[in-house]
């Protein structure tokens, strides 16, 4: 075989594919090389210098992440010299990083601590040099410079270049941009790509118990579609394991009065969005039409591209619609004063914390959602309450918001929102039922999927995008070709909400794939696969969402150009998180 070469790794002779790095080869061979700044989603930076290996005939150690194997290469991945430098470099990293282990997004999964053990690093050998560095908060994001190891993963992953590198040498700093033309869109990808937990969401630790401490209130929970295939990871279950029943049981154990499924809210979003899409397509108005349920995508347009605001659908996101229904429809039904209801959303997303506070969403002066906890935060809350998640017996969510269609479930994956909308809009556009509900061509992890979908005798040019950089590319294309496509779904995070900024760590393309596939599996096994066939949806449209005013105040919103949000300096992470 032409593309195979012979190399030696730790004395073992192996045939490997050309053009691979030493790190890739080692991983395949089951050899564990320590990495910290390396992330499979990002380019190779080789800043941390932990993955160094010896290559016979080359002076000085080489980084495995950046070195491409060549025929005859003789590689050693562990030796006294290698381990000595790893130890020293780890001690250097620890001297930049104020340990705050109980309050860290990596919790028990901290690579830095594991490596310190493995290489017997003396983590206090050098004194902490960043303890006086600032802690920044912007929107729902907290950036703690006292923990930052300057690896720059966040700088690279930020789709809007909001995080900047300042100064040189030991004075180097990663800071939020003061440029007035730049603002954070709160996707939280910086959080999930930071190897040392320097970035977290507001309230990620100190705020998680707040919602349940509200006295004399009806505290209800709703959980987003994707949580059911991700939260298990926090408890050591396989990537993508479906844990809906345990999730509900855990929430009930925590003491929530009712537990509702946000996927039912998604079914309402589908009805409204399908309606909007069909209408815009039939009337050829404000095309291309953009999805509106990802708050980071919305903020991106409002701040960076207000000229496209008119293209956004006005439909509210699932958590907001369901929160609104809980405080109106359900409150009336249960004869509860909506002021006494606290809605807590369990979301894969930190941007949902920002969305929840948008004033234009209020209904009769009340916010549809009062608290957002991310997947990570809920996991931590369960652990704090010593709930043995893994062994919880399944429980069902509560009526009336307990049974979503399959369409409401796949919202968690990129392409899911449009697939759901198409299932419902099909009849409206084509005038007949959809022959097969699966729209497989818009599924998958690809950043940009452009497909021509046949709906009756119409061809709808559909763009499905995940990642804001990809979305920006599509907007640029639209500037040249305004009719490049008819509709576009955008999710800010890679792979959609299953790759959200509030999801468990670590994350990679492979992990996102397993999470998404499980959602599609749930959908396929459901007898009920389209939102408009869902009995509870039909019933509420028949009895409650009967007039324009109601529908509008609960299911729709408006968007407007936004100015740069504030950047606050918090005193010190130790104090604020105590």
């Amino acid at each position, binding site marked *: 075989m032409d593309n195979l070469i012979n190399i030696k790794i730790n004395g073992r002779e192996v045939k490997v594919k050309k053009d691979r790095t030493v790190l890739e080869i080692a991983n395949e061979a089951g050899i564990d090389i320590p990495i910290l700044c390396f992330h499979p989603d990002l380019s190779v930076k*080789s800043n941390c210098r932990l993955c160094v290996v010896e290559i016979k005939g080359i002076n*000085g*150690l080489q980084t495995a992440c950046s070195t491409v194997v060549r025929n005859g290469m003789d590689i050693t991945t562990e030796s006294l010299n290698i381990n000595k430098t790893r130890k020293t*470099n780890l001690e250097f*990293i620890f*001297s930049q990083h104020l340990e705050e282990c109980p309050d860290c997004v990596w919790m028990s999964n901290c690579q830095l601590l594991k490596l310190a053990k493995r290489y017997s690093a003396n983590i206090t050998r050098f004194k902490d040099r960043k303890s006086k560095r600032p802690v920044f908060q912007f929107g729902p994001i907290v950036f703690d410079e006292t923990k930052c190891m300057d690896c720059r993963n966040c700088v690279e992953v930020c789709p809007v270049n909001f995080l900047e590198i300042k100064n*040189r040498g*030991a004075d180097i700093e990663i800071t939020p941009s003061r440029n007035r033309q730049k603002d954070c869109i709160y996707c939280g990808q910086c959080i999930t790509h930071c190897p040392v937990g320097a970035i977290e969401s507001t309230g990620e630790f100190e705020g998680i118990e707040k919602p349940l401490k509200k006295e004399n209130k009806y505290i209800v929970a709703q959980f987003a579609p994707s949580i059911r295939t991700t939260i298990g990871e926090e408890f050591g279950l396989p990537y993508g394991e479906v844990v809906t029943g345990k999730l509900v049981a855990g929430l009930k154990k925590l003491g929530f009065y009712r537990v509702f499924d946000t996927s039912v809210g998604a079914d309402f979003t589908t009805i409204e969005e399908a309606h909007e899409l069909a209408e815009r397509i039939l009337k050829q108005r404000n095309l291309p039409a953009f999805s509106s349920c990802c708050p980071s995508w919305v903020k991106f347009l409002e701040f960076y591209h207000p000229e496209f605001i008119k293209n956004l659908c006005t439909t509210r996101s699932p958590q907001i619609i369901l929160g609104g229904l809980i405080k109106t429809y359900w409150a009336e039904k249960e004869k509860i004063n909506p002021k006494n209801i606290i809605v807590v959303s369990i979301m894969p997303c930190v941007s949902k914390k920002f969305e929840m506070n948008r004033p234009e969403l209020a209904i009769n002066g009340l916010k549809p959602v009062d608290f957002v906890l991310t997947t990570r935060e809920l996991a931590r809350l369960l652990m704090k309450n010593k709930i043995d998640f893994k062994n919880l017996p399944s429980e069902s969510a509560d009526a009336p918001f307990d049974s979503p269609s399959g369409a409401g479930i796949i919202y968690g994956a990129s392409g899911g929102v449009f697939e759901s909308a198409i299932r419902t809009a099909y009849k409206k556009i084509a005038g007949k039922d959809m022959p097969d509900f699966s729209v497989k061509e818009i599924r998958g992890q690809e950043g940009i999927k452009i497909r021509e979908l046949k709906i009756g005798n119409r061809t709808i040019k559909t763009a499905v995008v995940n990642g804001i950089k990809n979305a920006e590319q599509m907007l640029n294309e639209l500037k040249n070709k305004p009719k490049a496509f008819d509709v576009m779904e955008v999710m800010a995070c890679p792979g959609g909400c299953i790759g959200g900024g509030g999801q468990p760590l670590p994350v990679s393309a492979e992990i996102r794939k397993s999470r998404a596939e499980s959602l599609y599996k749930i959908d396929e096994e459901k007898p009920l696969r389209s939102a408009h066939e869902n009995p509870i949806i039909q019933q509420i449209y028949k009895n409650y969402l009967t007039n324009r005013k109601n529908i509008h105040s609960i299911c729709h919103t408006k968007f407007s150009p936004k100015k740069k949000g504030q950047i606050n300096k918090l005193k010190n992470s130790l104090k604020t998180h105590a």
Partner: protein
Amino acid sequence: MIIKNLEKYNLKGRGGASFPVWLKWNEVQGSKSEKKYIICNASEGEPAVFKDGYILENYPDEVINGIKIALTTINNSSAIIYLRKDYYKKFKIKLKKLIGKSPIELRKKTCGYLCGEETTILESLEGKREEPRNKPPYPSESGLFGYPTLINNVETFFCVSKIAKGDYKNTRFYSISGDIKNPGVYELPENWSIKKILNKTDNFPAFNFFVQINGGAGGEIFNNEELSITVSGSGAILVYNFEKAKPLSLINQWLNFFYNENCGKCVPCREGILRLKEILAEKKPNLDTIKDILFALKETSYCALGKSVPIPIESLIKKIWII
């Protein structure tokens, strides 16, 4: 033809790394690309190295001629002279005159010492943060804006011109400075020993001394029993009076230089230099820690800046300041 001669004369780069010049030329010439770049590195930034300034002052015609030879040897190419800010100011008019209509552009250096490192020059010229790049790919494969790029030092282009004219006498330019009578730049045979160079330039001290070779920060220390070696690299000889020199302050001076000039990209360099400075300020510096740091710098630094930190310190401790 010129490449054959570069090989014949075994010309090595005069910037410091002593890489065979013909290999770089061969690779850039042989690569297929609609665009190629030639960069003359005139960013000379290490203490005690000042021969490129001297050459630009006295032989700018040879340097420009060397670049022009590269332009004709390498197809689809244009050239940039990357100049230290004061050199830019001083030599701009003279160089522009010599350049005439040739596609040679003058560009100002945008940072300090590190902007002499070849991949950092590329980042600088692309308007990015001045930091080294991963190698490979080498600039000759993928350099400025991804195009094959030949980067040579001022003196190297001088030599190319001399070789092309059949005028090359195997000499090099030595920057000689320190505790001596006649500091300056001297063009002398490249196979002369340090001892001979100091003698012939009437600089051989009457007192006990040691020298630092190839740079007043990252250069290696040699004692007066080692003077029979020749000087390669950037060709600098810095003489220290053994009695007057204070080893600790020397080390601090070097460390301060590296502390100010490192970019902060990689862990060992950013953190190691800072910690060395701190430890040496202590009353009883921990020698084991110093050794560990120097080892990590030497073995794992991203670029030559960090790798060179241990060179002067270790050689000074080994030969002069025996601890």
